[in-house]
């Protein structure tokens, strides 16, 4: 509620700038009170937590049925050790899985999903 009020007053600032930076510009009233508090927070270290994802629009690899964010059955560690690869048809597989598939085909390899010719997406 409070937030939306401010947005009405000075939408430009609030969208573009960090919160406390814009606060002194809002109203006289608030400015006075800020001057009163004089408390500042200085962040020394922010240790955040994140997870990564391949962002493959699908959950699991069509070949090994393992999660994309996991790793193929031959690998021990996910991520850099077991990367994903996209074909020109936009289907994604674990690199190791599709390599195995491609190498096992005698004729021109096809995408296991759409049966179009498999080509690595440049």
């Amino acid at each position: 509620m409070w937030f939306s009020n401010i947005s009405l007053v000075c939408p430009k600032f609030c969208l573009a700038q960090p919160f406390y930076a814009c606060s002194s510009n809002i109203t006289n009233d608030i400015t006075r009170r800020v001057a009163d508090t004089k408390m500042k927070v200085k962040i020394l270290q922010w240790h955040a937590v994140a997870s990564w994802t391949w962002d493959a629009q699908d959950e699991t690899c069509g070949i090994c049925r393992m999660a994309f964010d996991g790793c193929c059955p031959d690998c021990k560690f996910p991520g850099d050790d077991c990367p994903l690869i996209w074909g020109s048809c936009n289907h994604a597989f674990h690199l190791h899985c599709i390599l195995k598939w491609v190498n096992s085909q005698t004729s021109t390899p096809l995408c296991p999903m759409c049966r179009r010719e498999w080509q690595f997406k440049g």
Partner: protein
Amino acid sequence: MQLDDAGGALDSWARFCGLSDELFGGAGDLSAGPRLAPVVADLCARGLAGLLRDHFLRSLEGIFISNAVKKFWQQFHPYCSSSAGERIKSCVQENWPEEILGRALEDICLEKSYQEKCVLALVHCLQSYEDRTPCRKSKALDCSSSLMPRYQLMVSSVLLTTLPLSFPEILNVYFKKKLEELNILMAGSDGNNSFDDHDLSERNSTSALHSEMDIDGQEPEISESINLVKNIGKVVCDLRYLGFTSMTEDAYSSAIIWLLKSKVHELAGDDYRIPVLGCVKKWIQAVPLKFLHALLTYLGDSVDNESVSSGLKSPLASRPSSFPGIGVPSEALVRWHMRLEYFAYETLQDLRIGKLFEIIVDYPESSPAIEDLKQCLEYTGQHSKLVDSFISSLRYRLLTAGASTNDILHQYVSTIKALRTIDPTGVFLEAVGEPIRDYLRGRKDTIKCIVTMLTDGSGGNTNGAGNAGDNLLEELNRDAENQENVDYDDHTNIDEKQAWINAESWEPDPVEADPLKGSRNRRKIDILGLIVSIIGSKDQLVNEYRVMLAEKLLNKSDFDIDSDIRTLELLKIHFGESSMQKCEIMLNDLIDSKRTNSNIKTSLSKTSQTVGTVQEETELSHEILDATIMSSNFWPPIQTEELTVPASVDQLLSDYAKRFHQIKTPRKLLWKKNLGTVKLELQFEDKSMQFTVAPVHAAIIMQFQEKPSWTSKTLATAIGVPVDSLSRRISFWTSKGVLTESVGPDADDHTFTIVDSTSDFNKNSTVNQLCERFQMNEEEGESSIASVEEQLRKEMTVYQKFIIGMLTNFGSMTLDRIHNTLKMFCIAEPSYDKSLQQLQGFLSGLVSDEKLEMRDGSYLLRK
């Protein structure tokens, strides 16, 4: 020839009676003896020998009873009449039994020896008659030679029939007192000599042996003790003389044993840090054996026995035992020695078994006591006693609701270690450990405690009870060291077949093998294996470990995981690589994060330097942001919660994520904004304070930079968390005295105000330092990882629909039936793989949520 001469016979009889009376009453005058001979011969010739003998003995008996026995017992009268308790008391307090017993015995023995002389006189008469009439020799010889034994028998039977009940007790007290005196004397002489002579025991015993020659001024204690032994010996002699042989032996052996017992108790006591067995053994040789030796020598038994023992040696004595100073021990002495040692072992063992619980509580310090107990048990073989008593004390003292799981586990580990020394085969450990394991299985937090013990060693025991000896991590370490050449599978799960193969291929330790190391390696009882067997499966343990590890890693503010890697390596050795795979990935994530983090930061700082202008606006440098990037598939489910972080931080995060995307295309970062740690400094006009908090706390306090006062509703909207969780979180700051809370117009809309002026601050916070560091306590920091139970509940929720559907159709179902039906029908993803216990837990949760009802062991829908 003179057979029908009745008158002559009567005449001789009368004369015989007169003479014998004169003899008895003669008071030492045996002159009537020779005169008796013709009369006796006459009576014997008339065939009245038997009659004569009987009369003689009967009149002796009468005199003995009236003269000696009554007087003898009268001496003890005061002690026989009073009650047992007082009697003992008076005996102990006063000095009398010793003197009176001696005097009374002397009197009665005098009387007896006089009477014996009388008997001998008669025997002489009879013999001289027999010598003259060789034809009836055989029959008459009987007559004369049986007279003396009959007299002895008569005396002892008279004494035994008139014996007061308490006489054995009196004897017992007498010996006890005497032995105590002796003990004190010996101890005194030991103490004196120990200053100048190391071979004191040898010297003492030699002097005790050659008792007669040793009475010189230099060792008054020794001579005194010899006198004492002599006195005792005299009493024993007298008692034997009166036919109290077995009673006397009983009395002095029970006195010795009593003394031994009290000595063991005195030495052993409640101190478990010193070995006592050696002292007890030494004492046995120093006091009771020396006493017995002296006594036996005095009584002349040992001489007899020695001559006998050469030909007929007891199997007990086959052990060549040499006693210091007592050259070649007689067999009786060897027997006594064995007996006393056995008794000492047994006493000490009983004492230690009774206190085994305490001993194990302070195990590493109390190992001397354990060692003693081990030796005792080797000798007595009463292991089952130990098992029974220990189990009952465990039940009574440990396996109760009041004991914390940690304590139980520590005690269990100590028990394993202690019993491992007592019994390397582990048979008794099995019996003792079973109740503990059963009990621990019933406790919910067992797994958690075990994992804590495994990971941080201290067992999560903050009050310092967990000492180094209980450190399971250490145990892991040792395992790893010991196992270099042993197959891992060898002990983690030995199946029966494998065990049989092991048993068949068993070989004794080679002679040259180091007995300490070798045997330990081979017969090692695996503590971890035993601990894991409490839980049943290692999977559960590994899962719990994973959750705890995740918790720990997520709350880290740096990337220092060396100790965790070490622990994981050890666990991998124990549980196998595959089961620790996920944990390994988690640690690997941290290592990768560290690398990526520095990578991103250097590239970010480069760009910011080139741009330059952004810096001023955002005010926050990229340097302050670190990130742990995890492969979420391999981490335990994480509780995510919406949180709007301050825009400046949000900017940093998105920059960071963008950078990540650039470096690791096509991978993307998804922030878990509620996780992590923030180090911040609150700067006031005149002071600053440092805190390490969760992001949500940081977000809260940063809002107060703009506005000193917020209502909880507006604040909750600003940082994007529900009001109730906000009020939970904000209490951290109010408790630190940074914010004050006041109830606003709306009852559930509290107003929080920053404490701005210093004076206010001092009022609220007692701590007033320029720079303070606060670390969040565990209670304040909230678990970011869903606990195992929560995970389970989440997984089970899928089946809730099935269960409710089933119950709608069938009305009511038992637990078993629900379980089986689920197993049968839920085979598609996610297939039902829970155990009966897990299902039961879930159902009881539903019951408490008032969704189901439980009646007569079956579940039904609540209407």
